[in-house]
């Protein structure tokens, strides 16, 4: 258990430090890179809890895809970093409020565990126990049975969001030459070429 504890403190320490650097870094690209480090450490914590499936999904989905797009957008933005810093005091109350709400929620969760210790194991015991089935199977058993409607609803929300984003950014411009792959592939030599025998000195009269 000592090794697990050491590993936990390493991952947790890196996660907290990197999360702090996300808001402290001057350069937005550095912020995103620190955010990726935070995700990565969180994945390490998942592995320590025995939830290796979630850890890998976190890496694949958030680090491998979502954060890449973040990085993409932030790198492309032409932001004046100095002017970004100016409104700091102005936004401080709202930020503090959000932070306070999050803090309150954490206190409620952990406070419940302290007041009624029997609730703590409710949150952290997968059914059936992980010794019997693998991670992926344990998740699959509840996700597609007990939580199927929530799962489907989440899928619908994402689909609507995706369609919305496409509709908002789609524009049909006039006068743009587009490539039709089927037309290109379907084009044959007989349609495009005509081979004629040309007599010397006469040329082709009609086309």
């Amino acid at each position, binding site marked *: 258990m*000592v*090794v697990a504890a050491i590993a936990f403190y390493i991952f947790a320490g890196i996660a907290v430090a990197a999360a702090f650097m996300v808001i402290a870094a001057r*350069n937005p*690209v*550095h912020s995103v*890179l620190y955010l*990726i480090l935070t995700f990565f450490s969180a994945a390490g914590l998942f592995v320590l809890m025995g939830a*290796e*499936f979630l850890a*890998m*999904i976190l*890496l*694949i989905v958030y*680090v*491998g*895809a979502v954060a*890449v*797009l973040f*990085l*993409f957008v932030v*790198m492309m933005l032409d932001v004046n970093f100095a002017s970004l810093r100016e409104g700091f005091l102005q936004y401080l109350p709202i930020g503090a409020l959000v932070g306070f709400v999050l803090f309150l929620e954490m206190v409620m969760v952990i406070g419940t565990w302290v007041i009624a210790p029997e609730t703590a194991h409710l949150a952290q015991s997968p059914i059936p126990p992980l010794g019997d089935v*693998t*991670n*992926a199977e344990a998740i699959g058993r509840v996700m597609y049975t007990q939580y199927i409607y929530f799962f489907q609803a989440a899928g619908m929300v994402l689909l609507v969001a995706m369609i919305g984003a496409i509709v908002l950014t789609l524009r049909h411009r006039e006068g743009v030459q587009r*490539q039709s*792959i089927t037309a290109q592939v379907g084009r044959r030599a007989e349609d495009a070429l005509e081979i004629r025998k040309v007599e010397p000195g006469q040329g082709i009269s009609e086309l």
Partner: protein
Amino acid sequence: MVDILVTYGIPAAIIAAQSVFLLVCLLVFVAFILYADRKVWAAVGYRKGPNVVGPFGLLQSFADLAKFMFKELIIPAGANKGVFLIAPLLSTTLALSAWAVIPMADGVVISNVNVGILFIFAISSLEVYGIIMAGWASNSKYPFLGALRSAAQMVSYEVSMGFVIVCVLMTVGSLNLSDIVNSQAGGFWNWYFLPHFPMFVIFFISTLAESNRPPFDLPEAEAELVAGYAVEYSSSPYMMMFMAEYVAILSLCALTTILFLGGWHAPIDIAPLTWVPPFVWFWAKVIFLFFIFAVIKAIVPRYRYDQLMRLGWKVFLPISLFWVVATASFLVFTGTVPQ
């Protein structure tokens, strides 16, 4: 204290020794793979390829290594120094760490994790960061364009690669790489490249795109982008980027072998073939796939960028999505869902 050392220290030392051994073998192997790549490329063009250093030029890669090591490391003045130097380190570390879970024979694997396939998939999706960080930190136009191309390309092809992997996983019923290989035992007619043949083709082409190999080497298209994301790199950082690329190619070849070509199993389960150690079969298949990679590099012209994107999103994605549904339906309706 002694207890801790015995329970954790000795296994840790064994794992470390195994990892170092694997690392050294892998890097030496990469040196010869590089040489093989150049030789195949030369042979297709009726050239001799590297033939000066050592017998048949076999030591060319080591000469290159020495050259890279002793060259001056130039960091551009406008570059973001930290990120610029971390990028090649990250690429190499990630590329090598994928090998921790790849089984080369029954039980010959450093870490036989339950979610091995997802680990490799996660690692290969992280590899885009090495490239995108290198491109951004160089603070120069061509590397940046190369990095953006690469990021878009890798993210796009990962989607269909994921679906292909899902098809195989449904047939196996496990995420463990050793289980995947063992479910293909018995002969080549049990290997998954036969029932999942379209997926095998899609996966192979996607690995070409994922590893930025020709004909999908647009991130470093020299005609347009000089050398893509690696323009500003020199000396050992450049070597590390280069090495990471080849290690990643090898691990993708190994993944294809495990998923579709029966891993370490002999093609036919009869006497002379089963005398060959499983380890040799595994590497023979990996080298065969790499040979195809090398030949493709030599004979296929480069794709245009919009065609690359079209292939990924409009051709591979619908086909692989359909195949996922088809595989699932087949397994359910024939009652052959693996347990």
